[in-house]
């Protein structure tokens, strides 16, 4: 049986009286992408800070690659890559200087920074200062920096937040490739589409607690309602029928409408992760 690359057991953290994370437990296997889905302030970033050694947990404990996080985490930190939500790059330094500097903190002499920049579509801007980069380019730099040490564990905090669809798609492909080479990925997002596309499993986190943890398919099966949407001509207008699947008589109803001369389109529908999140928590992801 494969050992988890990330293991959190009853992790808790509070800022004064405010409980940011409460008894959070989960595991991420090598090569797996776990999507942490929750609204702003749900506790996603605090969980990442604890797992990367920036914050000592106030309750519970965590293991990365079988090593327990404690006072000196430099050994663990040598194996991880982190992409923060905040674009904390050295703006006065060039793209390649940023990557080379970060690599030198891991003791990597020839990090292949140009190859990584090429992969991220930034090779032609390698010698430009990061301060001249657009938001999307900076985000790609953040991802590139997180990959510089070929980490076994990746923590990506909102990696595609507020980016254009093309850049987002590029970044998602890169994340999939990292998981493909065996890296465990913990991805926080409040974009249900991204979580659905990328994640092998999804954890819903709300008010510091995990309220559901499973694959997106299982969550939809367990908490959602599949249905068929049929659109029919109705005089000059359009009539829509939503027929839940699995109900008694639903097959006969679908057959009847499908044979109607007014039939326009038939679509199967499944619950979205956002709808399930709202159902479970009573609030949206925004």
């Amino acid at each position, binding site marked *: 049986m494969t050992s988890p690359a990330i293991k959190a057991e009853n992790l808790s953290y509070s800022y004064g009286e405010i409980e940011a994370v409460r008894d959070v437990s989960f595991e991420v296997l090598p090569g797996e992408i776990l999507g942490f889905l929750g609204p702003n302030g749900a506790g996603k970033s605090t969980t990442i800070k604890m797992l*990367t*050694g*920036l914050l000592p947990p106030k309750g519970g404990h965590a293991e990365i*690659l079988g*090593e327990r996080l404690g006072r*000196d985490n*430099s*050994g*663990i*930190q*040598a*194996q*991880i890559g*982190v992409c*923060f939500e*905040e674009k*904390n*790059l*050295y*703006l*006065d*330094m060039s793209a390649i*200087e940023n990557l080379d*500097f*970060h690599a*030198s*903190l*891991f*003791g990597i002499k020839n990090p292949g920074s140009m190859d990584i920049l090429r992969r991220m579509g930034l090779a032609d801007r390698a010698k430009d*200062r990061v301060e001249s980069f657009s938001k999307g380019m900076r985000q790609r730099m953040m991802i590139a*920096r997180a990959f510089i*040490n070929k980490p076994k564990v990746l923590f990506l905090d909102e990696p595609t937040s507020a980016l254009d669809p093309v850049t987002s798609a590029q970044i998602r492909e890169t994340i999939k490739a990292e998981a493909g080479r065996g890296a465990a990925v913990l991805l926080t997002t409040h974009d249900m589409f991204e979580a659905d596309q990328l994640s092998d499993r999804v954890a819903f986190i709300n008010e510091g607690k995990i309220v559901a943890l499973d694959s997106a398919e299982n969550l939809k099966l367990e908490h959602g309602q599949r249905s068929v949407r049929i659109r029919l001509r109705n005089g000059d207008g359009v009539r829509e029928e939503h027929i839940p699947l699995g109900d008694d008589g639903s097959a006969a109803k679908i057959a009847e409408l499908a044979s109607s001369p007014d039939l326009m389109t038939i679509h199967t529908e499944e619950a979205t992760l956002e709808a399930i999140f709202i159902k479970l928590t009573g609030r949206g992801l925004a």
Partner: protein
Amino acid sequence: MKPAVSRLDIIGALLKKELIAYSRNRLYLFLTLLTLVLVVVMFWVMPDTVDETITLAVSPPVETILAEGREALLAMGASEEQLAALTEANIAEAQDGVILLEFETEAALVEAIEAQEDVSIGIAFPETFVRDVATGADGVSVTIYSAAAIPDELQRAVKSFVREAAYQIAGKPLPITLPAAETIVLGEDRVGEQISIRDKIVPMLAFMMLLMEAFSMASLISVEMLRRTVTAVLVTPARIADVLIAKATFSTGLAFAQVAIVLGLVGAFTAENWWLLMMAIVIGAMTFTGVAMIAGAGGKDFLGQMFYTMMLTVPLIIPTFSVLFPGTAALWIQVIPTYPVLSALVDITVYQAGWTDVWGSLALGTGWAAVLFLAGWFVLSRKVRSL
């Protein structure tokens, strides 16, 4: 699990990054170069000689006093030696560097001093001064008029001048009570070998460079905190201590190098004092590094950081002014953390002091530097943890 990188390599990488960040900031570079040039220019344009002449008002004219004195002494049956002594006591010629401006009356003298056109201090003798002194009369009164801006030591010098004149006439001192001699901490009695302004400002120039570097470093630290770039460093094998060591080393090294360059350019180093001067600069650089760490951690934005830096550094440069204004530094100035190191710098560069003269100041300065450095370390590490 151990990282494949040594602490030394990490600190080296952080130092390299500090150097790149510093060299890329045009504002710091400009200000540093500007200060460097300005302080050196300031040194060379300052006068390197001291005007030792004093214009002194006297009433009545010296010849009037002496003529009356001769008559009185002759009437008293004075000998030839006593008359010769009176001639020698011609105060107009007896004192080097004194230009006498004679007035017929005391009122005219007072008016001239009040106007402060040609003279700011003067002596009103009684016309019977010589007679009174020679006969040992009680209550011989000489009035010294001085403009408010005249420093106390010059007033004391004029009193001494009067006493000297009386001594030459009567062969005994006048009962003029002079204030008790004060210890001038940043100076000594250098009659005939006064220190020029150019030499006096050398320690001040060193402090200006340290101050400039404190501003630059505080700003660099602040930017790192505000942009949270330090957080990205702390999820690698680098520890908070590595970050702080690199920042402190870079800041101290930079301040030290620049002050050393300035002092080198103004010719402050000698074969005898170079190592003492180096020690004093290192202590000063560490002191201001501590201040930069506190200020850099304090501000929530650029203006906030500037405010903290000003609040912390302005009191620290107060002792430098005591160099320009001779006299005992007030007790409250002496307890300012930068006073001991400034005192050592003054003693080394201005008075060519040796180890036995300055070790006390250097030890005290080291103590203050350690306190500020540790305070800076503590404040900055707390700030980093809170990000």
